[in-house]
């Protein structure tokens, strides 16, 4: 542990500090948005949005490499794709009369297919997949940190600013509508927040695993919280612990960061759930 802290303090180890800062910043967004996702029971939609990000990254890389559009950062492609997917999936889940899940699965797969196709078209990009799928927290630059900080601030502002309405929409949509809340608009806002959080997380754990960090800390926090905002606070705390220990372990042991972080989160969830069951059984 001390060794790790010393390493963090080393001037040449900027990548380690960036990794930690981005991990901690995304914890805040994860705690807030993850709690909404878990209580509103839309983890499936969140997973679909996260996979569509691959399409955006592929398209942006293609434009950047093939057509030499230097400004076309994969991060922008990811953001655009995530927001577009959120809107599409949101409209499907609001208006589809039947087989909503079929359409959403299709959107999910088409997003991935578009990404894979663009990777194929992009010249000289040999191993594009692993960074995107499993995360690349060691490759974060100073510019990325600012981008992540900006998005994090946006998620924080919207996620907490609309808290009363989002809570009402998650808890009892019909009643919220009767109170004059524009339910569909707020639902789409929530999906937009999920999209932004997904983009933050692509760097940390990658597309394949990020749904775990969006749901497990919030689900674990659910055992300790009586109110939604408490769940958000506790989930943020859990995220900080999980991500920081994931980074520490992977630095020390040369493990892959994403999988280690997710395994820690899953272990904690299992442990807390079992203990809480046993406790309730004991007191009941």
């Amino acid at each position: 542990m001390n060794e790790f802290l010393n390493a963090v303090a080393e001037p040449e180890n900027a990548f380690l500090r960036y990794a930690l800062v981005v991990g901690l910043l995304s914890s805040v967004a994860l705690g807030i948005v993850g709690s909404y996702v878990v209580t509103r029971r839309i983890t499936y939609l969140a997973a679909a949005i996260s996979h569509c990000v691959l399409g955006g990254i592929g398209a942006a890389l293609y434009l950047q490499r093939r057509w030499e559009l230097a400004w076309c950062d994969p991060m922008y492609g990811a953001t655009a794709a995530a927001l577009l997917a959120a809107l599409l999936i949101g409209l499907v889940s609001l208006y589809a009369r039947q087989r909503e899940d079929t359409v959403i699965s299709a959107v999910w797969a088409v997003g991935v297919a578009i990404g894979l196709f663009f990777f194929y078209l992009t010249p000289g990009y040999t191993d594009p997949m692993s960074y995107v799928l499993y995360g690349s927290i060691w490759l974060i630059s100073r510019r990325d940190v600012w981008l992540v900080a900006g998005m994090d601030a946006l998620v924080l502002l919207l996620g907490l600013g609309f808290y009363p309405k989002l809570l009402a929409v998650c808890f009892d949509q019909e009643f919220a509508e009767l109170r004059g809340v524009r339910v569909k608009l707020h639902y789409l806002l929530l999906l937009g927040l999920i999209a932004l959080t997904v983009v933050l997380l692509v760097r940390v754990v990658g597309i394949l695993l990020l749904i775990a960090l969006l749901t497990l800390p919030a689900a674990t926090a659910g055992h300790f919280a009586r109110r939604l905002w408490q769940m958000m606070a506790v989930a943020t705390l859990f995220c900080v612990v999980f991500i920081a220990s994931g980074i520490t372990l992977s630095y020390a042991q040369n493990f892959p960061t994403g999988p280690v972080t997710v395994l820690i989160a899953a272990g904690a969830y299992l442990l807390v759930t079992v203990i809480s069951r046993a406790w309730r059984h004991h007191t009941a």
Partner: protein
Amino acid sequence: MSTDPAISLRHVSFSFGRTPVLEDVNFELPPRAAACMIGPNGGGKTTLVRLILGLLTPQQGEIRLFGQLPRRSRLRTGYMPQHLHYDAQFPVTVMDIVLMGRLGHSDSNRWFGWYGRADRAAARKALQQVGMEGFGRRPLASLSGGERQRVLIARALCGDPELLVLDEPTSNVDTLVEARLLDILRELNERMTILMVSHDLGFVSHLVESVVCVNRRVIVHPTSEITGTAIEEIYGGSVRAVHHHGQVFAAEQAHE
């Protein structure tokens, strides 16, 4: 106070696809009246409530609340649903739920931001009105059926409604709580119009002046006229009226 009727329906018809649910419904409820809606399951009670709340739009006819379209008078209406379709683990306290009744109402919470002091004061007052003061911090999951029912009434009251719509307020409630609810509703009726759905005519006959009988068509009876034969007509023979200590209950018979 406006002189428009609290609720007015004129020649309202509604169908789901080709299945007619309500046909040519006409009735009016003056301000500060109390009425009870009865009828067999599948007879259109829920649809009628949803039409009055503006959650559904009739294919024919017009519905007005206080002279306005239901959608436009939502903030003057308080609604208590029969059930909450919530997740038992949802992290909310009684206070969180009651505060939802303030949405769209308060000055501090127009479109952005949290509930203000006035909202919390209104929520505490509403809880007090239903005899639930001191329950604010309790998680929803820890409440009994009757307590939950009262929390939902408090949520409906929290926005200072002029019309209160209650869907089966006495389901899952024991007789002691029922008496308590009756007192609360009688007191509220001095200030607001009350429309409730109930099977329990014994409960409502002390409170309401008229009974709205819903079975595709709608007939309104003054409570005093409600007799066994009237109920049998409404329920189409699938129900027998039970006279019990001078009160009339509509008991549903199983279709076998």
